[in-house]
């Protein structure tokens, strides 16, 4: 019994189960509060209905490294090491998946990773065209052609050097 006390099981929308250390899961505020509400219960399974397994895996990977690095670099240098890991972590995520990930992280309320993913998406759209960004976020243009032309005219320099890929 004692050995499983510090573990919790996270269940994805597909029903896939992930066994995670409490130290890792407690970074997900929503999981933490559910567990606190149900203290004393022997049931250690938390269903994350809307979060797909691939995102659950990413989030666990991030916080597993976060917890390990924090322990290892208590004396200092944690932020630098975390930055290195974050760079490598983001490289393996597809730009479309970033959107799914940010929704999942927002839902689970995990502030550190939320900041990382928001920054990554901002970096991705930084030099993109208006059309690309509308498509990326699924936003409908509600300006008339004249209105849009006028707004562009006000700050023409902002439209130089933009790429669409």
């Amino acid at each position, binding site marked *: 019994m004692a050995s499983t006390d510090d573990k919790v099981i996270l269940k994805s929308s597909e029903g896939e189960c992930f066994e995670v250390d409490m130290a890792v899961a407690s970074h997900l505020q929503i999981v933490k509060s559910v567990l606190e509400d149900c203290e004393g219960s022997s*049931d250690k399974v938390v269903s994350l209905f809307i979060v797909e397994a691939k995102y659950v895996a990413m989030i666990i990977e991030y916080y597993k490294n976060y917890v390990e690095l924090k322990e290892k670099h208590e004396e200092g240098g944690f932020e630098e090491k975390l930055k290195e890991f974050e760079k490598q972590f983001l490289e393996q995520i597809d730009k479309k998946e970033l959107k799914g990930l940010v929704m999942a992280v927002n839902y689970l309320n995990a502030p550190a990773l939320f900041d990382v993913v928001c920054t990554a998406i901002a970096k991705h759209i930084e030099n993109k065209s208006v059309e690309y960004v509308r498509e990326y976020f699924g936003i409908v243009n509600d300006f008339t052609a004249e209105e849009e032309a006028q707004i562009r005219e006000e700050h023409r320099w902002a439209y130089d050097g933009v790429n669409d890929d």
Partner: protein
Amino acid sequence: MILEGRERASHSSVSITEETIEEILLRLAVKSVVRFRCVSKSWKSLFHNSSFIFKHTTIAINRSRKNHTLLTTNGKHRSDIEYRKYSEKDDSFVCQEIFSTPPIIKWDGNDQQQCCGGLIYLSFPRGDCVLWNPVLRKQFRVPDPVPYVSSRRTVGLWYDENKNDYKMIYLDHEAKTTKVYELSKNEWRGIATTPPGNIFSARPVFVHGSLHWIGVKRLTYYWFVVVFDTSSEVFKEMELPFSCVLIGKTFPLIMLAQLGDSLSFIYGTANPAVWDIWRMREYGVSASWIKHFTINMGYRVLSPSRSGIALTLRKVNEIIAVVGKEVLVFNVHNETPVSCHSFDSPLNSVDYRFDFAETLALLDYPLVNIDESTDESSA
């Protein structure tokens, strides 16, 4: 154990929530924000919301503290200035962007330009001034603090992080008047306080919510730090590591600088350029002044009274110093630099600084035409 259905429903939509999109957009550079004004009506109104501008500026300022973005100022000719933004790369700096002042802005010398939180203050020969946002390519004419602006004046610009406002102080040393300007109200108001002693340095250093100048008491030659606490709007005094600095020195160099969140004091001879770098480790405690290292530039720095120096903290124990065309990296415990690189700093550099942050301030301001009469060479 399951999460409640209520939460489940509110999050099950397939698109990203507006709050999350706002969080992403807050992390964009100014140029992208300006471009994305035409994505949709709701994005445009979000960008013009003062709370968005406030949060965006705060994030940019926090980021600038970590990124070591260097801004250089150079006076190509006496009448026009160029600013260059550099980013750190392999212990040196690479130029990212060049901002030239709008042609109608005339510059009247080294001491009358200042930069804080992304806005640059520039003054005209007769004393009136503009606030200029180089990234937005927008300038705003500030009303004159008094009908006749004294040549014996000191001006300080700062960004008030609590009020989300750019503010300035105007000190008239002849008439002994002090005025404070707030950009959001666009007006000057008088305050009943004057600095203790004479202000010696032109540009203030803004740390710990206060502006700092080097001051001197005329009769006693007592050198000290003049402090203007911007929240209580009162002047204070702080001690330098020593007070009788100039006696017996030829061509002295004496200035304040910013080093991370701390106040730094630079003291030495200007020709040859040998400068001691001091830091006040605990703000407001004069006993905490500590001498970190000495920068010896020999005769490599010309015109020392005008050559800039900027310091920034990197990692735990590293200090980057930018002087002339050189980037020196020091370990705080060691006198000799760990590394020394040259970078393509522009000729006639007069100022270096590490606290430049892009800001959306002035986005909603109309472009005010500057009085033609101040632009003598416009034809």
